[in-house]
């Protein structure tokens, strides 16, 4: 479904990614794990075609997207949907209009059919009652769930999540996790970017771990848990790191 080969990206003077190569199979849930500023979200933006790499290849459903024009990318994006970290709901539209946005823009379905799909998607995330609310009236967890409903209603075959549980309380985090697992059983291909180990180990078929813009691990959650690589052990259990190593990690993060 998605193939990245030797992807390199520089933004300004900063090299963000180097030598990124991995694949996502149809129906697979892949988690991209890493600390803040490691370049995980940038990978999602590359897959979506919001950034172009300096070097390397990105194929989505067999199509090389690095050479496509914006109009052609818009066609490719019809098969994808992204749940943004802050949900990125359109402030001027109601929940109904947000969730059905892509369907109304495409103009292929009648209003009744779109309304039904919107209600089904909101029902799936447990927010049918919020259909007439404005995004400003929703809590952080509700906004994230509306973001997932928007992705679902679009009928996309590939869902991308950017830090889906960031800033949420444990119950809302669990709800999001549960939604991703339900979609997994439906055979939806999903890429989840997170630094939350709990969600990573719960939902992932395979995990890619990123550090400083490079892949340092790829494998199953079990393989990750059993890894003896000091960088991986340090991320999974920071308490096992010596104080100077924790300080070095924090200062790099701040940089």
């Amino acid at each position, binding site marked *: 479904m998605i193939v990245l080969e030797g992807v390199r990206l520089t933004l300004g003077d900063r090299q963000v990614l180097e030598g990124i190569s991995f694949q996502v199979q149809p129906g697979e849930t892949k988690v991209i794990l890493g600390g803040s500023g490691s370049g995980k979200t940038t990978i999602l933006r590359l897959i979506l075609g919001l950034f172009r790499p300096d070097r390397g290849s990105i194929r989505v459903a067999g199509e090389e997207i690095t050479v496509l024009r914006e109009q052609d990318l*818009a066609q490719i994006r019809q098969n994808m949907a992204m749940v943004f970290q802050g949900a990125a709901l359109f402030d001027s539209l109601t929940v109904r209009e947000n969730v059905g946005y892509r369907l109304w823009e495409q103009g292929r379905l009648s209003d009744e059919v779109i309304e039904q799909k919107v209600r089904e998607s909101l029902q799936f995330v447990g927010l049918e009652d919020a259909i007439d609310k404005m995004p400003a009236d929703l809590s952080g967890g509700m906004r994230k769930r509306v973001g997932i409903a928007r992705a679902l209603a679009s009928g996309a075959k590939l869902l991308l999540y950017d830090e889906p549980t960031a800033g949420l309380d444990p119950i809302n985090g669990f709800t999001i996790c549960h939604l991703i697992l339900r979609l997994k059983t439906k055979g939806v291909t999903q890429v989840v970017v997170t630094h939350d180990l709990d969600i990573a180990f719960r939902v992932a078929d395979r995990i890619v771990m990123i550090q400083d813009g490079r892949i340092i691990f790829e494998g199953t959650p079990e393989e990750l848990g059993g890894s003896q690589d000091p960088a991986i052990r340090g991320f999974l259990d920071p308490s096992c790191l010596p104080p100077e190593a924790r300080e070095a990690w924090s200062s790099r993060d701040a940089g």
Partner: protein
Amino acid sequence: MTGSFDLKNTLIGYVLVVQEFTFLCSRAIAGLFRPPWYVREMVLQIDRIGVGSLFIVVLTGMFTGMVLALQGAVQLEPYGASMYVSRLISTSVVRELGPVLAALMIAGRVGSGIASEIASMQVTEQIDALRAEGTDPIQKLVTTRLVACLLMIPVLTIIANGIAIFGGWLVARLYLGIDSYFYWTWAFEAIRQRDIVLGLVKPTVFGFIIAMVGCYAGFYTKGGTVGVGVSTTQSMVSSSILILASDFLLTKLFMAFP
């Protein structure tokens, strides 16, 4: 050494701004000629920009005309020509004050509003979300606002001009005791066809400046909520300077073709 290096970077920065602005303008104009046209969004913007700015434009026009009548009468009095004050009001309003003052007021209200709205969308990833949904954000956000400004700012300017001449008449009739028939006859007599053309070309150009500078400031916002404030201020300042500079250039250009 450091100074020359900074100058080089500053110059590169200016060139980049011109390049980005030209790119945004060309994409927005190209959006006029290919679907989708986002008619609903366009009508919404026409309402917000046109109807929403009506009150401020009427007030600007009214007070401009009234002040011109008072000041004009004082200047013409020594020559015994204060009854011709309507001539002075109509020509100065239609040629210069109407378009420029209306545009400056609209830049403050509409231009900064466009900049802050798009900047907020940028920093909250809504622009990226539009692209992710398969929508061209330039066509949806910029082209629609450009069309609304190009259509509504000339209309608002015509209204401002009319109200200004009316405001001048109020002062001329009630304070200076000038005959109404005399006032209106000279007011219209003084306006030539080229004044009307110039009075319509100017607000169209100003409309383009207000829309594009506002959209550019919003689209290229960096730095979170602080960046939203910076973009809003930059939009207002840049629009005002460009309006005044282009007013001079357009007047000079029209004078070159008598």
